[in-house]
């Protein structure tokens, strides 16, 4: 158990970038509520969605990057780097919050409709900006769709000791993480939110995915590969994915709902996103197992031109994520202003993704000019959103 992890392998696993890039696109699409295109995103076809992919890969890359630093340069320096990263993400979050406030203030000033007198009360917080802004700085006030970065900050703040453990006793650390997750079913801990309630993504639950990703990066994936090669596991995963797909279909077509046995519903529902329902976690695992099976690390397609845009986005995930949140705001705003139909929604979705890709290339170009090209070099820089640029 205490054997030092042999792998923090030097080579970059492009699959991580690819899937993180795709996850970023999906998150962008899902964040535009009125969007015909988000029928294509995976949340409609199973329990888990892009958030799981994103958090897992972020854990993986965080361990990949900072694990090396911790091994080579010690606990203090690597912790400092992790905390600096958390700070950068915090600043990014506050920046997005500012944009959000601008949008809200605009809506408050221009939109009025007696039909929505009650809903408009949500704008009341503008009447007390002192409280609201302060609560936002404390990460307690989080507007809709701005929950991922605070989760990330929380996970990174606790990551130094976790990484320390993972490097020495990886299985023990993972078991500890799973124990916290399971214990929380009973204890129901979560961080408080403002003005009421709790964090949308409970860090005590979601840490499991992050730590699991980190564990995989530090040699766990290799240990798991024996399991993943088994046909039984593959079939179990496929069967579960099909099951989840069928269940999700009954959410969209209510006429199908009556075919789901009541007993099964009592066990399954509600599928809780806040506390990373075990059905969601299992769905992610199944998805990952199947993906790893059919997309091997040395898959030639990873070098094909078609996939490069997604890979590039995945390599600059903090910037692209923030941009995606902003574009989702902007896109939604345009759709609302023009009462837009499916055509406009599709156009905005595509345009948004193009802008994300263009920006990712621009950042690559800039970093290349500055001599910090992420791809060929192994030297550690910041992990982009705990990760990408290693």
């Amino acid at each position, binding site marked *: 158990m205490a054997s030092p992890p042999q792998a923090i392998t030097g080579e970059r696993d492009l699959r991580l970038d690819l899937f993180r890039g795709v996850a970023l696109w999906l998150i962008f699409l899902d964040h535009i509520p009125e969007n015909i295109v988000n029928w294509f995103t995976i949340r409609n076809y199973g329990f888990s969605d892009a958030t799981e992919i994103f958090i897992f890969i972020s854990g993986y890359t965080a361990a990949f990057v900072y694990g090396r630093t911790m091994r080579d340069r010690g606990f203090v320096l690597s912790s400092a780097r992790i905390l600096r990263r958390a700070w950068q993400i915090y600043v990014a979050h506050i920046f997005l919050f500012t944009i959000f406030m601008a949008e809200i203030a605009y809506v408050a000033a221009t*939109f009025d409709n*007696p*039909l929505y007198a*009650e*809903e408009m009360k949500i704008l009341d917080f503008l009447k007390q900006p002192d409280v609201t802004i302060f609560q936002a700085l404390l990460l307690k006030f989080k507007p*809709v769709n701005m929950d991922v970065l605070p989760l990330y900050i929380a996970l990174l703040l606790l990551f130094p000791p976790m990484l320390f453990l993972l490097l020495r006793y990886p299985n023990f650390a993972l078991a500890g993480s799973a124990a916290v997750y399971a214990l929380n079913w009973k204890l129901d801990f979560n961080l408080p939110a403002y003005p009421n*309630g709790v964090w949308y993504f409970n860090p005590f639950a979601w840490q499991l995915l992050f730590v699991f990703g980190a564990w995989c990066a530090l040699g766990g994936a290799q240990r798991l590969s024996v399991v993943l090669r088994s046909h039984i596991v593959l079939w179990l995963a496929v069967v579960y994915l099909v099951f989840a797909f069928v269940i999700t279909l009954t959410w969209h077509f209510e006429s199908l709902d009556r075919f789901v046995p009541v007993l099964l519903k009592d066990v399954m529902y509600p599928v809780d996103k*806040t506390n990373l329902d075990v059905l969601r976690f299992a769905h992610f695992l199944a998805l990952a197992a199947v993906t790893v099976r059919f997309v091997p690390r040395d898959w030639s397609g990873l070098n094909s031109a078609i996939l490069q845009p997604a890979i590039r986005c995945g390599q600059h995930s903090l910037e692209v994520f923030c941009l995606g949140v902003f574009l989702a705001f902007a896109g939604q705003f345009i759709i*609302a202003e023009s009462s837009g139909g499916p055509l406009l929604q599709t156009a905005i979705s595509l345009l948004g993704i193009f802008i994300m890709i263009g920006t990712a290339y621009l950042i690559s170009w800039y970093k290349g000019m500055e001599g910090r090209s992420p791809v060929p070099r192994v030297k550690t820089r910041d992990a982009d959103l705990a990760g990408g640029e290693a």
Partner: protein
Amino acid sequence: MTFVMAILATIAFVNGAAAATAAEECDVPESLISAETDLTRVANEISDHHRLDISVVGSGSSVLSGPDGPHFAYPAQLEQVLKERLPGNEIKVTVHIQARQVTADMAAALPKILSEDQPTLVIWQAGTVDALRGVEPEEFRTSLDQGLDVVAGANADAIMMNMQYSPRTESMLNVSSYADVMRWVAEQRGVLLFDRLAIMRYWSDAGIFDLYTATSGYAMAHRVHECIGRALASQIISAGHLDAGKLQTTR
């Protein structure tokens, strides 16, 4: 004299035309109006006593402000439509609307309301204020369960009504998780849900109402509420099987 008659005729004609367009506007696909659970108490009350007492419990989105707002809000519209569609029956809709009350407040107020009104049907509009206040979904669910227990204990049928579809506030006010809870509770308890969210979304998507419009006028709000009243009446009539037999001949 003929002049007055002409004016009256014109008014009648315009009114009729307006009513016709409202009815057309209000078209809602049947799939959006669930009638999976029978309103047996409503059916019995109509067939045995030819009357129906309805209590509407809700928050701000069950009423309209402005001149004569309550008269145009959906509870009053519902009463009127039911009277038209169920002639020969005494229909009474009593409203208990209080702005800013969360579901827990309403659940606590239900016993008193029920003992005063003795209704056969309770329409419970909930969720918006809970979303505004960020009430924990689990707590929201418990409150719904409590309230529905009270309604069942008072021997009344229940219809839950969820939030309005409000595209302009959607990026600030996330109602979907509360809507999910209501669907789940409805499903689990076999209680009818009036899916206002889906219905209004349909009206928006179909171009029937432009719910993005910024306006200080009441015209659209009145029409939306009228349509909600109509859709609600349709749900009550089909889930109570009130369209059958002699009722149908009177239409």
